[in-house]
């Protein structure tokens, strides 16, 4: 069954209150993926609903201790494969950088404590440490992910879709990691630009299907990153409107 835009719009209020059937919910969710206007309306409805729920009361005693206890017993799943396989498209696609960074930071923390808390090692951390040592893949990217002082920027489309994420280290070593960047035809390439004042400076020609790309951020003055699609081989100046961009955090 397909619904018109108008029919979907009429469902947005009841959808936001979980008052639709599972089938209707599925139809709305499919529509929301491609409709920023309807997404914004649902978000507004949910903010209103959240205001209704406010009572200013406290959570019952005991629940937090149960939650904290669960964290100790079952720490968040460390999906090491995701952290290690940045070049492996199927594993990387759709995984936000911050999660990879979080897992990587956790891995770093585990490594850091290995020397002083050997008695606390269990099977899980043993496995983690071994995997980190064995896997030389993307060491430079991992180092950037471990680097707390590195700047991170999401490259997003105008309607809010994150296409890629960049991490920029203080020394200028930088990496662009795919998020939802689609594969291009072979005669096209992605090209990354640094915005300096009103000029776009090419930072790299990334190819038609990039997973992780390294680039150097030499010199200062870059305030934003932008991504365009260009003809294969790249161009000296952008010929297309950026499909995604992001402001670089100020140091």
């Amino acid at each position, binding site marked *: 069954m397909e619904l018109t835009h108008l029919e979907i719009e*009429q*469902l*947005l*209020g*009841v959808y*936001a*209150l*979980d*008052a*639709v*059937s599972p089938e209707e919910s599925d139809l709305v969710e499919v529509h929301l993926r491609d409709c920023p206007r309807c*997404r914004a309306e649902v*978000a*507004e*409805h*949910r*903010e*209103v*609903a*959240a*205001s*209704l*729920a*406010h*009572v*200013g*009361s*406290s*959570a*019952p005693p*005991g*629940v*937090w201790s*149960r*939650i*904290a206890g*669960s*964290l100790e017993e079952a*720490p*968040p*799943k460390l999906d090491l494969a995701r952290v290690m396989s940045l070049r492996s498209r199927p594993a990387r696609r759709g*995984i*936000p950088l*911050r*999660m990879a*960074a*979080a897992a990587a*930071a*956790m891995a770093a*923390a585990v490594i850091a404590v290995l020397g002083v808390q050997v008695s606390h090692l269990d099977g899980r951390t043993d496995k983690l440490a071994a995997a980190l040592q064995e896997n030389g893949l993307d060491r430079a990217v991992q180092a950037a992910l471990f680097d707390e002082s590195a700047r991170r920027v999401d490259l997003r489309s105008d309607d*809010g879709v994150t296409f890629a994420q960049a991490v920029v280290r203080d020394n200028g070593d930088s990496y662009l990691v795919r998020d939802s960047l689609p594969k291009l035809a072979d005669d096209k390439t992605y090209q990354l630009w640094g915005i300096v004042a009103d000029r776009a400076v090419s930072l790299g020609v990334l190819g038609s299907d990039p997973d992780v790309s390294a680039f150097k951020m030499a010199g200062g003055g870059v305030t934003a990153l932008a991504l365009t699609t260009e003809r294969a081989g790249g161009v000296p100046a952008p010929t297309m409107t950026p499909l995604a961009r992001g402001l670089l955090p100020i140091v």
Partner: protein
Amino acid sequence: MTSALQEMSDGGLVVAIARYREDALAEAYRRHAGAVFALARRVLADLTTAEEVVQEVFLRLWTQPDKFDPDRGSLRSYLLAQTHGRSVDLLRSDTSRRRREEREARQTAEAGYDLEHEVWDLTVADRVKEVVAVLPVAERRAIELAYFGGHTYREVAVLLGEPEGTVKSRIRSGLQRMRSALKTSDLSDPGDVAWN
């Protein structure tokens, strides 16, 4: 708990949670668990199940912080949407619904329990109550049955004896009306009042 965490924005807290900072989760819990629990309890009318929902919602934030997208609204509305969705799922399972209906019938018989009065006079914060007051009764009733009662709009239509299309429109226009009133009243971010 560090004061830095207490001053951190909700977005910053989620980033810290993604870095496995348990104290950041504790701070998010301190800010929002009261509202999460109250909503779950309201919808489920069951203390124990509501506590389980609270636990589930915050553990999900811990294991899947990337599900929260700050571009799509506040952390508070995200957590409450999770809470509501989960509570409604539980409610719509036969056992829970039967338990709730039995409890409500018993409370009504024993203490003159008035669900409508309870919901709208006791659960709604004073500031928001003013906004709710802008709603025509028909819109308010439809929203109440859907949101706090956990009913689908089709069920609401049957309960109110109204066409389904009318109920859909009333709920949407009621939410839009309240949104406008919240903006006018500068209550568009009610989340901050829950921190105190």
